[in-house]
Each structure stands twice: as structure tokens, then as C-alpha cells.
């Protein structure tokens, strides 16, 4: 768990094929407000490169990535 940040929304995208988890994250970012912290759980290998690439392009912050058992957990902050 992140201690410094409160997760506003958690998306369990495990089992979703590429680009599902990224699309779910984009949807949540669009619906959220600036400062929101969003967590995405993804078992899709593509997410490991796609989510950081999209965040870099779109200017949102990747707070943390952790490898769990069979999936990755991305913590993201909506910046703008």
C-alpha cells in the first residue's frame, strides 16, 4: 500500500488482453480530477511498457509499479 497517497480508484484489469488495461486507465484518468491517484492491476505483459509510455506522452505521473504474483500494480496520479 502507498502511505503518502490515497487511492481514489482501483481498477482490476487482470485477465484483460492488451490494450484493455491501458484503455481502462485512460477512461479513469478522463473521469477523474487533477490529483487523483488511480491504481491499475494488470496481468497483460503489454501494460508494462504501454502504461509508462502513455503516461509519459500524456503528462501524467507514474507513482509506483510493483510486481505481484502474476500481475503488476501501477499507481498513477492525474496531473492535468
Amino acid at each position, binding site marked *: 500500500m502507498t502511505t503518502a497517497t490515497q487511492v481514489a480508484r482501483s481498477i482490476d484489469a487482470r*485477465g*484483460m*488482453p*492488451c*490494450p*484493455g488495461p*491501458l*484503455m481502462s486507465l*485512460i477512461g479513469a484518468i478522463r473521469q477523474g480530477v487533477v490529483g487523483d491517484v488511480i491504481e491499475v492491476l494488470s496481468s497483460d505483459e503489454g501494460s508494462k511498457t*504501454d502504461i509508462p*509510455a*502513455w503516461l509519459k*506522452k*500524456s503528462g501524467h505521473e507514474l507513482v509506483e509499479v510493483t510486481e505481484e504474483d502474476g500481475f503488476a500494480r501501477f499507481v498513477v496520479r492525474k496531473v492535468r
Partner: protein
Amino acid sequence: MEPDNTVSLVLFSGTDDKLQAAAVLTVGAAVMGRKVNVFLQYWALDALRADRVMKDHGVSPEAGEDGFRAMHDQGKTHWSELFRQSKDLGEVRLFACADSMEMFHITKDDLDPLVDGVWGVASFFAEADGPVTFI
């Protein structure tokens, strides 16, 4: 995000696997800020008729039985929905090839609303400022 260089896709094949792959490329390009123009010819255009979009369009011959099953078992988002999402998220336009329209004797009204209009091939190239991908 300002769109940078345009992605130009020509879709010819109308099987679900190729349309799926094309829709994934489109959505990826759109979310990364690329403008996408999709030109629909022959069987891809046929698959985008309003009354046919959700039908089973089969898969490419190389898929075989196992490939067909693998594709359907994964619970993929339908390619038409991916195109819809890509239009919502970025600057994506789909155009019907005027020649293919004539071949099928159809008009814009026969097509799914995903299709923005009808283009001659020169119009497509007028907007294609980089490589063209043919699927």
C-alpha cells in the same frame, strides 16, 4: 496532446482477426497522439456495413482451428468498439473507398456510423504524409 505525424492505414481484408489487429493499431496510435486515417476497401468495407459489423467475419486462412479458438477465447473487445474508443480518444477518421462503394452498389447510409465519409484514393494520399500500411 497535439497530433504529430499521421498514421495511414488501408484496410482490405474483412476477416475479424485482421480487423481486430488493425483496430488495436489504431487505438494505440490514437492514444499516443497520432492522427489516424483509415481507408476501407473491398472486404473491410463490406464488414463495415451497418447490418454486418457484428456478424462473424471469420479469420484468415493461416489461423486454422486453433488460431480461431485462441482468438475467441481471450475475451477481446470487438474491433468495432476499439475503433469507437479510438475516435473518442484521438483524431481518427475512417473513409470508404469510392471505388469499393460502387462495386457493392452501396451508399454512405448503408455503412456503420463509424465511417466518416467516402473518399477517392487520391484524397487518401493527399492526407497521407508518411508511409501507408496495408492490412
